[in-house]
């Protein structure tokens, strides 16, 4: 199992992500954004979190034109598995690989804290180790995490089981930290091979550090 992790100027979660996947037994490689291809033995491509290009213009807007993104798009379109975490989610929506967009948090504050999430659809490789309705505790750390999609887009997301996770409280009741439409924290594409979420499962790998709920999430990718 080989996990390739993208690195743009300003990415800062690539080593956490590498550590998380290696602790689960995967081989990893960090891929600089100037690369024009994705390694042929890639099983999962992760667009890691951070502040690519300083979030200039819009989060993820400049990164989508990095040389590597053409290869990422080709990889995704041919069925390759892609996971975008935080800034990676923003990059994937900007690149048109995931529906919707991420706006500034409603509160206008940068949020950095643990938050509970409810599993909405587990019929995909990312969440299949969890059950629908399960509540996980995973850190969030973002300024632009306010998920937006128009009414028709939202309907389509529900029809195709593309809503992965929603923000909630400890009991699983709706609790929205950033103003996201329907409290959505993560979505996938129709084909269910491209995944994006604002919370950081790679930061929830050790009970000692607050939660190890990220293990079950990332493990889903490792059995393929």
């Amino acid at each position, binding site marked *: 199992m080989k996990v390739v992790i993208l690195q743009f100027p300003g990415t800062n979660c690539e080593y956490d992500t590498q550590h998380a996947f290696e602790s689960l037994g995967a081989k990893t490689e960090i891929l600089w954004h100037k690369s024009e291809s994705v390694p042929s033995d890639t099983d999962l491509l992760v667009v890691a979190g951070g502040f690519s290009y300083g979030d200039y213009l819009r989060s993820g*807007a400049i990164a989508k034109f990095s040389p590597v993104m053409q290869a990422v798009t080709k990889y995704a379109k041919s069925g390759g598995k892609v996971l975008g975490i935080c800034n990676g989610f923003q990059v994937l929506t*900007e690149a048109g690989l995931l529906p919707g*967009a991420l706006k*500034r948090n409603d*509160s*206008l504050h940068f949020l950095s804290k643990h938050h509970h999430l409810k599993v909405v659809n587990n019929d995909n490789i990312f969440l299949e180790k969890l059950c629908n309705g399960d509540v996980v505790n995973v850190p969030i750390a973002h300024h632009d995490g306010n998920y*937006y999609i128009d009414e028709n887009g939202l309907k389509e997301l529900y029809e195709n089981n593309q809503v992965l996770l929603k923000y909630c409280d400890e009991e699983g009741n709706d609790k929205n930290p950033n*103003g996201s439409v329907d409290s959505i924290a993560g979505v996938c594409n129709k084909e269910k091979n491209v995944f994006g979420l604002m919370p950081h499962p790679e930061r929830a790998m050790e009970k000692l550090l607050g939660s190890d709920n990220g293990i079950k999430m990332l493990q889903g990718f490792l059995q393929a």
Partner: protein
Amino acid sequence: MKIVVNVSLKAGVLDSQGKAVHHALESLHFNNVSNVRVGKQIVFNLDESDEKKAMADVTRMCEDLLANTVIEDYAIELIK
């Protein structure tokens, strides 16, 4: 020619910054203010004399990069 592109959140997309600015204006006793929207302005020179061609170029820039048309509208101004 000089190009001015104004980008703002679409009508119907909640503008939290606009709302915060509106509240601040109210606290300054400007009670006659409504519909505050915060956007951004991108200004540049374009080496192009044909207005039609310039408009076509800048429209493509907006669609591809300057605006995210999922949430934002853009307006282009050409200044000779």
